[in-house]
């Protein structure tokens, strides 16, 4: 055995090194993940991010979102045959008004959107850009346009 070790010491050293490298690959990943989590504490950066966020919240609304007709528009249009677009999850009063200003008032319009339509509308949503895809408007509107409340609720929850 001793002679074997003496004769093949380089094989053993190589095996040892491979072991170290494998351990490094296996456990270095885990260590960086813990470090990444540790730096994620909001308090680490002090009050500056909170102030920045508050400034973003207080920032005046972009010109694409008309401020004045917001409260009146939805009621008016629903009274004249449009759908209550705020039933789509993720669509609030501001988005409803914005959609109405773009001529979108019914679920079947949204349900029929093609990828090109989505891109065109999305470009005009300003701060709400990306919501169509994120909140699956087309799918939601499909259920609502068909009047499939049960399907809608089972897929997207009550409300």
């Amino acid at each position, binding site marked *: 055995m001793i002679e074997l070790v003496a004769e093949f010491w380089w094989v053993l050293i190589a*095996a040892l090194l491979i*072991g*170290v490298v494998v351990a490094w690959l296996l456990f270095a990943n885990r260590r960086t993940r813990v470090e990444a989590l540790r730096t994620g504490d909001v308090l680490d950066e002090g009050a500056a991010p909170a102030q920045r966020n508050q400034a973003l919240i207080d920032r005046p609304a972009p010109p694409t979102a008309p401020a004045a007709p917001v409260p009146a528009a939805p009621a008016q249009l629903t009274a004249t045959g449009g759908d209550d677009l705020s039933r789509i999850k993720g669509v609030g009063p501001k988005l409803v008004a914005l959609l109405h200003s773009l001529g979108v008032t019914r679920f079947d319009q949204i349900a029929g959107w093609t990828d090109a339509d989505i891109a065109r509308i999305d470009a005009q949503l300003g701060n709400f850009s990306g919501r169509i895809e994120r909140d699956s408007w087309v799918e939601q509107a499909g259920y609502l346009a068909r009047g499939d409340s049960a399907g809608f609720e089972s897929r997207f929850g009550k409300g």
Partner: protein
Amino acid sequence: MPIWMELSILALIAYGIGLALGWAVISRGGK
């Protein structure tokens, strides 16, 4: 026992020691 078998057992042991050594170094460094 043939020589290759002895040698592979020794290599396996060395590999295990390396693995433990690497783990020990990394886990201490990460604290």
